[in-house]
């Protein structure tokens, strides 16, 4: 009997220990000068979690950022793999467990993750204005200032700017559809060659269609249930109408855009999609996409958004995280990242604000060949909608399309 008493006792202690909350252990860096932050960061080791699904991005991080921050600031940067949902799970579990020291010090986030992390108050900030290189960023630009219509308020550092593009194989598609009607026509006459990934990219495509149906500006601002109901119904009717002509008769969908790329290069699909307008160029340079692949956008436009880095509230190396963030938005790091042969990620720096030497370098940057010039996409750039639209699209895509 004694045995069971001890068992229950240990059990209870562990249960309560796991549920106990802990006080906030913030170290306030807001009163320190940048030199003091640099000093504090020296010799620190930093864990950064980010999506590592692209060899170019990994190469940029491992062969450039990691050695540079070591050399310039004596910071050991460890990069680990994890998409937005993983980052949210890790930070949420840590907060739920009352863990005061986060495993993560810097995270690559965008819209929906920012929304989730702000919802659970897992981000440190505001800190962005303390970064010396932030003076090169035009924070009045709505594509930078707002992340999914949420003001970033100094809680995340803009890192790159991209626009959603549709990629097709010009050897198989002579004139790609540039609006909904043409897409419907194309899909019906070329069954099995088009589909939508059930992931962030696919939902971004649907969002572009939704905005196109509602008209530019109709859905901006806070989430509007009535408007969503009205236009999403049209969207689902449209998709359900052409779904039988999708890949595998629309009975299943690729789980992510990587799987879709694979189907595209295998020749099963004539189209794939990308959130990065330069991806077509670097995938051709890599030899993964055929030389005949091209990127374009619909006449009514596609979503343009920025992606950011943030510092978890319970990071124990915030100073180092700030120094690395500052390095990531330095003209040299941004220039390198923007080159199509490196990563091709659009810079967040304002070409008017960077020093003249860098203005020239950015102007003379090697051009991409297989996607329209970034400036020409500007006229077809749509702003992200409030995060709730994405939540609902994910949900309803499953119930209205996949399960029907």
């Amino acid at each position, binding site marked *: *009997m004694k*045995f069971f008493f001890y*068992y229950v006792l*240990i*059990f209870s202690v*562990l*249960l309560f220990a*796991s*549920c106990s909350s802990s006080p906030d252990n913030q170290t306030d860096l807001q009163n320190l000068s940048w030199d003091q932050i640099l000093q504090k960061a020296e010799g620190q080791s930093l864990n950064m979690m980010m999506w590592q699904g692209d060899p170019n991005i990994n190469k940029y991080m491992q062969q450039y950022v990691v050695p540079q921050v070591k050399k310039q600031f004596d910071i050991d940067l460890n990069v680990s793999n994890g998409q937005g*949902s*993983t980052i*949210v*799970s890790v930070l*949420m579990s840590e*907060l*739920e467990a009352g863990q005061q020291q986060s495993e993560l010090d810097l995270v690559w986030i965008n819209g*929906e993750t920012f929304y*989730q992390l702000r*919802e*659970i108050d897992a981000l440190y900030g505001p800190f962005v204005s303390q970064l010396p290189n932030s003076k090169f960023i035009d924070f009045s630009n709505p594509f930078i200032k707002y992340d999914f219509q949420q003001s970033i308020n100094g809680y995340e550092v803009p890192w790159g700017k991209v626009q959603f593009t549709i990629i097709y194989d010009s050897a198989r598609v002579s004139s790609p559809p540039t609006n909904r009607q043409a897409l419907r026509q194309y899909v019906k006459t070329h069954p*099995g060659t088009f589909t939508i990934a*059930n992931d962030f990219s696919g939902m971004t495509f649907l969002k572009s269609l939704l905005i196109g149906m509602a008209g530019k500006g109709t859905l901006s601002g806070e989430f509007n249930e009535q408007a969503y109901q009205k236009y999403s119904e049209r969207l689902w009717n449209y998709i359900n109408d052409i779904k039988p002509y999708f890949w*595998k008769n629309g*009975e*299943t*969908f690729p*789980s992510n855009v990587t799987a879709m790329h694979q*189907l595209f290069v*295998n*020749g*099963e699909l004539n189209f794939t999609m990308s959130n990065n307008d330069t991806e077509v160029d670097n995938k051709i340079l890599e030899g993964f996409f055929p030389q005949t692949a091209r990127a374009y956008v619909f006449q009514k436009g596609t979503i343009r958004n920025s992606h950011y880095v943030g510092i978890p509230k319970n990071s124990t190396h915030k100073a180092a995280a700030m120094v690395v963030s500052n390095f990531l938005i330095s003209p040299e790091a941004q220039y390198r990242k923007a080159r199509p042969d490196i990563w091709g990620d659009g810079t967040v720096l304002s070409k008017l604000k960077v020093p003249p030497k860098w203005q020239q370098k950015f102007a003379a940057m090697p051009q991409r060949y297989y996607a329209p010039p970034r400036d020409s996409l500007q006229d077809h750039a749509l702003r992200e909608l409030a*995060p709730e639209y*994405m*939540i609902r699209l*994910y*949900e309803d895509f*499953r119930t209205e399309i*996949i*399960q029907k």
Partner: protein
Amino acid sequence: MRIFEQKLFKNKVEATGLLLFLLLAVLPLLLGIIYALLYSLGITGLVSDGFTLKYWQQAFTDIELWYSMGYTFYIALATITLTIAGALLLTIYLKEPLQQGFAGFSIYVPLAFPAIVVAFLIFQLASQSGFFARIIYQLGWISSTAQFPELVNDTYGIGIIAAHTFMALPFFTLYFINLYDQENINQLAKVGQTLGASSAQQHRRIVVPILLRRAFPTLTLYTIFVMGSYEIPLIVGRQSPQMISVLVIRKLRKFNLSDIPEAYISALLFITLIIIGLTLIFKNRNFSYDLDQ
């Protein structure tokens, strides 16, 4: 009380062993289950608003969850049926060759493959743009690779079943061959033969029942293992229905954080069903290897 304690444990070593087992294996699981339960009732969790039964109500009325459970059972049963049939055939008809030479070595090869690698292999080989489709296309049997039958991401889970069977078949073949020798089944079959049993009767009445009876606990546990698999259905399964692990992870990582309790409920319901199933199956058995049981 003393008598009770003496009955419970034969000696101190046994008591310590049991205590360690409970502490290291049972306790964490129990804590996990209780945590999931609290989470599902809104009692804990960062975004919880206090006690509520709404998530449970949602879960019970969620057809997708029940569909997913059914699909999971179907995949596991189909895999184990094919595996048993294949392993028995191999054991009965190819026992000798499989114990020597190249064949003997090759049967170990699939055992070295991690599930995720097998999933990718199946995908690369059996998809409509995969290796087999291309060969058949090159041979001119089909006019486009899209005419190749859907074997991955398909409605009936053929890809998932194939991947699992590929992994389980060598394991159970080796296991059956071992049991065959350990149980002297050969001798028993000979006795049957002496008593006038035909070859088919020997297989049906002696070899197969002994092997299945001895392997029953392992087969049951392997079925549960297949039910809980993640990478294979993730890669070669389809978006709907999904096997339970894929469904739980999807719900756990949903964009909408207030849906997380549903993930815990899905997992809890699945565990409950498994425990009920195991209780019913092993109610009149124990795990002794005594064939008289």
